[in-house]
């Protein structure tokens, strides 16, 4: 590890801290309806779509609206991808996407996952990229914010199950948060050299005299919402390791900040909405402590490198001053970014449900690769996805408050609202879904020939590849241990199901929880209320999150990356 590397991590942390409040204030105004500078645009959209903006929906109506919107938009994308070969803006004359990948991709982008089993530059036309995938990048992000907004209102207000209006929340999220943010980011990316055009692919001559095709496209605009909406799907197969997507250290830094921007601001928004700003900062602190812990572990193990290389006489220490070796584990990493920026990016992208990558996670050391898996298995609530991070964290907060109540023998109470069995039942439905799907589907793939055939590595690393894929798809992350061959009927279909389950099977109990909480009266805090703004609360919250995650996933992790780590030190690689 180097001072330069730590300085990058520190600078990133400071910037995230500094943007939390302004973004949080802005989000507050977007979702309490007090921001109106695009009111005319809003009204036109409402009129065209027949939306009654004054309707305050019951949580079940809110849920039905979201499911109908998601179902229709997913099916439209499926049909458009299948018919791509007959549609315009296709200068490479790419054929329609095959059925299994069209299903998986439609599910992937509808659920804000952006898992990709295809190479974008050789599979997707410009129309598919801009009208289907980018559309979902905006609306799936805004839909995640809708669920968070509903839960925030459920906690903050007493409204007999009424949580706002899904359609207005969706549209306000798109036009006030994601469109303006994406426009600014795209311009910054273009200034830094990210390409933005609709040209046919270029054929160039290389220095060796060979011919090479350079893929073109509207990359900057896709890149901006991909990061800001924690979507993560790359325009190119190499994602953010591609020099046209991520050309400079500045774009690399900006992309990481964009990933955390809205989720970090959401903690401040929540604090304001419930009139308990210190509690919002307590959530931020819990997220930050887990983030910095993960970044430090990943950076250390990637900087330490592979002991087998060291035994062969390779200088693996970056700080040794050797000019011959960069040090550490550089396999699968961009030389332009190095170890610290790659480790940090991997941590950030898996803390949030982004999934963009600037290095190949499959080539990380076993423990370096373990951290991204654990980040996703904890529920992606370390800042997390846009909206999803906040509602995931609040679900764990309610579990924490419930456990604290059990410890002191009082009826649990959260921000003046009693937490009783029906709220805890919803939290349990939320918590139990991950082990059922991730462990269940990993187990199925680990025993069926169709699942085993996808591995490119044997032993514990092969298991880690399968585990990573189902963890990533269920967590709606979308990053991959790229060693797994997922473009098969078995995996495309299984991953499609995992992504849909990971999104919507979690959203249903969260909206129910929001509805139930909105029916509770708000009592004034008393001496018996568990304070939710103290270091003790932060530590208890982290403890609950880690214990739930450890109890659930430690056995399978011990069979994958953990045993791989010990075998690596015993001289065996996979």
């Amino acid at each position, binding site marked *: 590890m180097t001072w330069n590397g730590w300085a990058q991590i520190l600078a990133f942390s400071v910037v995230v801290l500094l943007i939390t409040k302004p973004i949080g204030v802005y989000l507050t105004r977007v979702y309490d309806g007090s921001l109106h500078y695009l009111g005319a645009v809003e009204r036109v959209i409402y009129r065209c779509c027949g939306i009654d903006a004054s309707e305050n929906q019951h949580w*079940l109506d809110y*849920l*039905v609206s979201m*499911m*109908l919107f*998601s*179902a229709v938009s*997913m*099916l439209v994308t*499926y049909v458009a991808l*299948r018919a791509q070969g007959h549609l315009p803006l296709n200068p490479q004359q790419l054929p329609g996407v095959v*059925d*299994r990948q*069209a*299903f998986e991709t*439609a*599910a992937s982008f509808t659920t804000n996952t952006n898992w990709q089993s295809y190479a974008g530059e050789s599979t997707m036309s410009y129309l598919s990229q801009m009208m289907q995938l980018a559309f979902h990048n905006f609306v799936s992000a805004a839909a995640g914010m809708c669920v968070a907004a509903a839960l925030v209102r459920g906690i903050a207000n007493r409204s*007999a199950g009424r949580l706002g209006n899904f359609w207005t929340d969706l549209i306000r999220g798109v036009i006030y948060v994601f469109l303006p943010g994406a426009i600014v980011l795209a311009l910054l990316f273009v200034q830094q050299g990210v390409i933005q055009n609709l040209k046919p692919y270029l054929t160039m001559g290389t220095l060796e005299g060979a011919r090479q095709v350079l893929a073109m496209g509207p990359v900057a605009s896709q890149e901006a919402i991909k990061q800001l909406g924690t979507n993560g799907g790359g325009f190119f197969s190499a994602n953010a390791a591609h020099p046209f997507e991520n050309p400079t250290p500045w774009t690399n830094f900006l992309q990481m900040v964009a990933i955390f921007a809205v989720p970090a601001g959401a903690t401040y928004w929540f604090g304001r909405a419930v009139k308990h700003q210190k509690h919002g900062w307590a959530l931020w602190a819990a997220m930050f402590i887990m983030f910095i812990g993960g970044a430090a572990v990943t950076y250390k193990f990637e900087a330490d490198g592979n002991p087998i290389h060291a035994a062969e006489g390779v200088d693996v220490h970056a700080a040794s001053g050797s000019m011959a070796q960069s040090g550490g584990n550089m396999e699968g990493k961009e030389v332009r970014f190095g170890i610290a920026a790659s480790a940090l990016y991997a941590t950030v992208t898996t803390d949030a449900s982004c999934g963009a990558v600037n290095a190949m996670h499959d080539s990380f050391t076993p423990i370096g690769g373990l951290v991204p898996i654990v980040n996703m298995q904890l529920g992606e609530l370390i800042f997390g996805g846009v909206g999803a991070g906040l509602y995931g964290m609040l679900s764990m907060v309610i579990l924490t408050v419930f456990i604290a109540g059990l410890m002191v023998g009082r009826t649990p109470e959260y921000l003046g609202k*009693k937490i*009783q*069995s*029906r709220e805890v*039942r*919803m939290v349990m*439905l939320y918590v139990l879904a991950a082990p059922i799907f991730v462990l269940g589907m990993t187990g199925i793939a680990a025993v069926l020939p169709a699942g085993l055939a996808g591995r490119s590595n044997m032993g514990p690393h092969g298991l880690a590849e399968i585990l990573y894929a189902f963890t990533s798809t269920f967590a709606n992350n979308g990053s991959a241990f790229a060693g797994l061959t997922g473009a098969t009927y078995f995996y495309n279909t299984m991953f499609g*199901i995992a992504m*849909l389950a990971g999104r*919507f*099977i979690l959203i*249903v*109990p969260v*909206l*129910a929880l929001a*509805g*139930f909480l909105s*029916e*509770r*009266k708000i009592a004034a805090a008393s001496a018996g209320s568990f304070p939710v703004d103290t270091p003790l609360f932060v530590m208890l919250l982290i403890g609950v999150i880690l214990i739930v995650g450890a109890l659930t996933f430690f056995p399978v992790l011990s069979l994958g990356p953990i045993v791989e780590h010990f075998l690596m030190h015993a001289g065996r690689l996979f």
Partner: protein
Amino acid sequence: MNDVMYVLATLIFFALMIAYGYGCRALGRDSVSGRADS
């Protein structure tokens, strides 16, 4: 044929999610604490 299967599976999934929502509401009502505070 596969197209029909994938489209049907999608529709069935979202129908099940709506049913799941009603199931959660029933689970809340069934609870002893399911009454809104007075």
